[in-house]
């Protein structure tokens, strides 16, 4: 028997009983729609969390800290410092694209009456390229003069030491008027000398300490975002790593550089030791492995991945729960299909008998019923998807803003794979529900069937 003949017989049988077919399809529609809408909420929740985490910094970044930096490692002969060699080792780990050391030093910046203690960070060119800029540009590579990239919230750190206002500014209107681009910014690197000159001006040997030299450092660019929008780069000022190293060496000469550890004799090392490094991983899925490799080398490694994994786990649970609720209604719909098919077989016992006496193949009879129930599933699946898109639209239009005002973006998302899977699943459920009725029809004795009056 040709497939087209089978199909037209099945469809004709469904058309004969329009109301019952409609009601059964309605059951599948509701089942499919409830699964799709529930799963779409789960997907939306998951993606929203992902987007939120991604907005706090790259998901492929691993921050590495040195344990040895803050003392405590006195007994060990060879403290585990992060040096250029170690950075090179990081870069040799599989799946690592780049490793950028961060050389942090505390400086005092002044402009007019205002001053602030700022974390000045020397970074590599590749790191600097990742900083989103509001205006300006990143300094030219190889330029030995310091040029600053200023975080969008740095201005909040400035205060007037002569007034008694210190600390945080609660609203943006009271943030001091600091202009990095157009007005000169003076930077003092030698903080010890600065304090000593402030507090009476005597040093260790009783000698008078001259106030340290102020350097005028131009600003090359500003980090994107207003004074309220926090991001990873908001509170720091970035300069080129090599330029900073050169500057520090020139200022401090043989003296220990602040923030740099000293050996047991209190002498500085003749190379720079980094407090932090950023390792770029090629893919999100490899972050955990890279992180572990770095931890095994004796460093502390953090990434957004841990957070992400946790919230993904949470999102999966939410998704499973929502999907499960939807699945219950599809299960009920499946029982409806089975019931409809059973009824249909009782009604058509005689007809099935005639078909068998006339020589209709048993497999054809089974397939006819499977097709019928599969078709119910198909219709329910298609209409269910259409219905879900409607519900999803309404949720996004009216509910998203009300409940999740802090999260922009759609709450309910139906990706194409979900629609396709849902229709496929509805067909499968229809056929599975129709399977035993179809077997029953196939096994009906033709004699008993034609005697049925």
């Amino acid at each position, binding site marked *: *028997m*040709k497939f*087209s*003949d089978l199909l037209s017989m099945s469809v*004709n*049988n469904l058309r*004969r009983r329009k109301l019952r077919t409609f009601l059964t399809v309605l059951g599948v529609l509701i089942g499919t729609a409830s699964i799709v809408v529930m799963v779409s909420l789960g997907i939306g929740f998951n993606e929203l969390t992902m987007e939120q985490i991604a907005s706090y910094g790259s998901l492929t970044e691993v921050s590495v800290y040195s344990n040895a930096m803050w003392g405590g490692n006195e007994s060990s002969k060879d403290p585990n410092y992060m040096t250029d060699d170690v950075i090179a080792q990081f870069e040799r780990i599989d799946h690592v694209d780049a490793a950028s050391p961060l050389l942090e030093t505390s400086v005092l910046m002044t402009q007019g009456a205002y001053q602030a203690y700022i974390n000045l960070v020397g970074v590599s060119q590749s790191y600097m390229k990742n900083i989103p800029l509001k205006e300006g540009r990143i300094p030219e590579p190889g330029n030995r003069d310091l040029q600053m990239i200023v975080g969008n919230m740095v201005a909040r750190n400035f205060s007037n030491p002569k007034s008694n206002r210190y600390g945080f500014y609660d609203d943006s209107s009271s943030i001091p008027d600091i202009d990095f681009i157009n007005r000169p910014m003076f930077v003092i690197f030698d903080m010890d000398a600065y304090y000593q000159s402030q507090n009476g001006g005597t040093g260790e040997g009783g000698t008078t300490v001259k106030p340290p030299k102020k350097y005028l450092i131009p600003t090359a660019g500003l980090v994107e975002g207003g004074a309220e929008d926090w991001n990873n780069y908001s509170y720091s000022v970035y300069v080129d790593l090599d330029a900073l190293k050169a500057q520090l060496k020139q200022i401090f000469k043989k003296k220990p550089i602040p923030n740099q550890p000293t050996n047991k004799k209190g002498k500085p090392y003749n190379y720079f030791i980094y407090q932090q490094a950023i390792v770029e991983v090629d893919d999100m899925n490899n972050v955990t492995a890279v992180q572990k490799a770095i931890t095994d080398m004796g460093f502390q490694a953090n990434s957004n991945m841990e957070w992400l994994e946790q919230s993904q786990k949470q999102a999966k649970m939410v998704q499973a729960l929502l999907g499960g609720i939807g699945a219950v209604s599809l299960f009920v719909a499946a029982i409806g299909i089975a019931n409809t098919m059973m009824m249909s077989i009782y009604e058509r016992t*005689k*007809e099935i008998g*005639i*078909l*068998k*006496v*006339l*020589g*209709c*193949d*048993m497999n*054809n009879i089974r397939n006819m019923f499977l097709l019928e129930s599969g078709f119910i599933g198909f219709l329910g699946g298609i209409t269910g998807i259409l219905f879900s898109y409607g519900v999803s639209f309404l949720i996004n239009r009216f509910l998203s803003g009300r409940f999740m005002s802090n999260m922009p973006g759609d709450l309910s998302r139906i990706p194409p794979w979900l629609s396709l899977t849902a229709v496929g699943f509805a067909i499968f459920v229809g056929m599975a529900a129709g399977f035993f009725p179809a077997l029953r029809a196939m096994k009906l004795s*033709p*004699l008993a069937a*034609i005697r049925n*009056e």
Partner: protein
Amino acid sequence: MTEKKSPMIQVKNLYKVYKVGNSKVYALNGVDFTIYKGEFCAIVGPSGSGKSTLLNMLAGLEKPSKGEIVIGGSHIEKLSENQLVSFRRKHVGFIFQSYNLLQTMNAVENVALPLSFRGVTKKARNEKAKEYIKLVGLEKQMKHMANEMSGGQQQRVGIARALAVDPKIIFADEPTGNLDSKTTREILNLMQKIVREQNQTLVMVTHDNYIAKFADRQFHIVDGKIFKIEEQHHEEQHHEEQQHEDTKEDMGYEEG
């Protein structure tokens, strides 16, 4: 119809035993006969004689307890259910007492239905169906649904459906059981005509001696055994003779 012909159905020593509680009931108790190609045979017997059981076994709807059935050279008593379905599809046409047309289809579609089981294309099978509907004289009712036709018309469609598959053999189970006397005669004449013109083999089951007389040979069956075999020589004028003596036996018939 007595000239030498090739055997179409050979039945040898056929038994069908039902178990009712502890006792055995012999529905068929050793039946032997042969039906030749191009014959119109009637199996006649009172109800409970085993005639329907015999027909069901010939058509492969029931399995014999013992014995052989050879149709067109092949044994059918050992076939599985699937093979029997396939056997019926290829070689057997069936005419039912209650016509058994599918109510959702019109006359042409009903006749074409068994052809669709063989995978014949819609165009080819509809053409063939129309041809046979014309043969049974229903040109005007081709598009009528089953319930829009009279019993006689439905049975004609049933006959066309049995013929459309070019069967080796046609079985008819009380084909006129639901028809009035006039239509009964028409249908039986049609069946006679078809057997002659198409050289078909037709086996009819009936409880009515009068109807059985339309057949070339009658197998009288009582208590599961063949009791006698009668031969009848039909000529065209024969029908006129019989027409005035049939009223009495028609009394019990219901209209379909």
